[in-house]
């Protein structure tokens, strides 16, 4: 398929179709309305179904039902809407169902604003809803990567029977870049789901459930979920590095939008006689800890930059564990840093040692 110029939101929608997903349930919210808009036009073309639910809570429970019946299904929303979906997401994690959720983050708390933000990192990576669960979290930084990761998200969700969250922001969602869809699969080509509630004629009934009143059974269930997250940590960590192989003065750790700005800063750093490198986690859960330390070890200091007041920096500090100075630079409220700000912060960090 030839390259097309598409908005991130549209590419996400098309990627879901190319992944064999034929069900979308959601509720509008800026800055991701282009996803439901795209799905409302595209789903009927491929025999799929688009439903604008009465609320995000309803949409997340439609996801629960459709995933339980064995269908590939996804939703998209932005921060306040994702909060509303958290009850359903917790049930989905508890019942071990594969769903894909797109969060095009906006500033918060509360209704906040509509401009780019990364302030839902904690919510995304530490569970989000109630109960001791985790979603696998993918963070694209280009439109092409958003499309690729959405396709992967459906496979990962099925493999682990677990919710997979794709975390973007308004910049990734609204920006246009060339994109091509490298794979295409039809629903009938997907592997069977023998656990799904598809009608039990001729076989034992399957049960989709998150209620375990017997504490011994619930404990066993919780440890089984935990074992699944450990397996994800063993097999699914992803990251990208840029200009770190020969070591650097300051290793910038950033994901999504901020990682792009960091790359521009790195290219400009040479003019200032500064050696900067980038470590970009692509999976935010599981976090690529070992690879991060391998890059940090070759650097004098580590600068974490986020569109938040400091969330991922906690995971980075846990990895670096005091072995290198770790600084933080954040912009919030929809403000986005320029490359020059990152260069200034990196120089300051080198002078002061954090």
């Amino acid at each position, binding site marked *: 398929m030839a*390259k097309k*110029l598409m908005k991130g939101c549209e590419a996400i929608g098309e990627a879901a179709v190319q992944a064999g997903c034929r069900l979308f349930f959601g509720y509008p919210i*800026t*800055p991701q309305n282009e996803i439901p808009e795209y799905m409302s036009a595209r789903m009927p073309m491929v025999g799929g179904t688009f439903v604008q639910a009465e609320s995000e809570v309803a949409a997340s429970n439609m996801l629960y039902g459709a995933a339980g019946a064995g269908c590939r299904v996804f939703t998209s929303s932005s921060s306040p809407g994702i909060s509303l979906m958290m009850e359903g997401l917790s049930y989905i994690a508890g019942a071990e169902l594969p769903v894909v959720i797109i969060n095009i983050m906006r500033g918060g708390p509360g209704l906040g604003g*509509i*401009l780019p933000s990364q302030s839902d990192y904690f919510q995304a990576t530490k569970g989000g809803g109630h109960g001791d669960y985790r979603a696998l979290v993918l963070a694209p930084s280009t439109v092409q990567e958003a499309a690729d990761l959405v396709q992967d998200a459906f496979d990962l969700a099925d493999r682990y029977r677990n919710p997979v969250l794709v975390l973007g922001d*308004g*910049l990734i969602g*609204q*920006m*246009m*870049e*060339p994109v091509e869809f490298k794979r295409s699969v039809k629903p009938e080509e997907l592997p069977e789901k023998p656990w799904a509630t598809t009608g039990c004629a001729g076989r034992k009934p399957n049960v989709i459930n998150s209620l375990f009143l017997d504490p011994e059974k619930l404990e066993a269930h919780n440890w089984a979920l935990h074992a699944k997250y450990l397996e994800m940590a063993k097999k699914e960590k992803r990251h990208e590095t840029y200009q770190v192989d020969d070591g650097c003065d300051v290793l910038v750790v950033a994901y999504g939008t901020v990682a*792009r*700005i*960091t*790359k*521009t*800063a*790195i*290219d400009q750093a040479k003019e200032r006689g500064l050696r900067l490198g980038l470590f970009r986690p692509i999976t935010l859960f599981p976090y690529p800890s070992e690879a991060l330390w391998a890059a940090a070890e070759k650097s004098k200091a580590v600068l974490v930059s986020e569109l938040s007041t400091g969330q991922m920096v906690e995971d980075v500090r846990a990895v670096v564990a005091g072995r290198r100075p770790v600084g933080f630079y954040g912009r919030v409220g929809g403000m*986005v840093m*320029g*490359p*020059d700000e990152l260069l200034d912060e990196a120089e300051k960090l080198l002078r002061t040692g954090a």
Partner: protein
Amino acid sequence: MYNEIVMAGFGGQGVLLIGKLLAYAGMKAGREVTWMPSYGPEMRGGTCNCTVVLSDRPIGSPISKRPHGLVVLNLPSLDKFEDAVRPGGVIVVNTSLINRLPRRSDVAVVPVAANEVAMEVGTGKAANMVALGAFLGAAGLVDVAAVSTVLEETFAARPKLVGINKEALRRGFEIGQEHAAVAAAG
């Protein structure tokens, strides 16, 4: 080759569209491209802008704080972005709606009466195409014929608009080229 271009005007003047045409033509020429709109809580008649980056290498930030090129269709946009343009850059000013020229002396200024030229072609609505043409004439960057082709594809569903818009683009291109030639002659 690395170029950041900001296009700005009132909502409804079509600045997002000319940015898309530029990005699309750049992509077809094998360049890396990004197109980033302003998407604040804005309305028709409010200000609106987009940033296009054209590059030979993968593009980092799609936002520009120091653009190489600026195309402004109204006065608030000139006021907002004039100082940000890099020295040696190009500013295309729509003199139909902007009653002053840029104060900068370290950039190439291309004044073009985009609305009047568009009216001559058939509709004032094509002022955006005149401005895009003027920018291409002065700055090069992307082959105007490639933009013309992309324009045909974009308006495929409304063939009546193709001719007028292509002509507006061509007229703007000539004005931009003349200006660049005069500037080069000193």
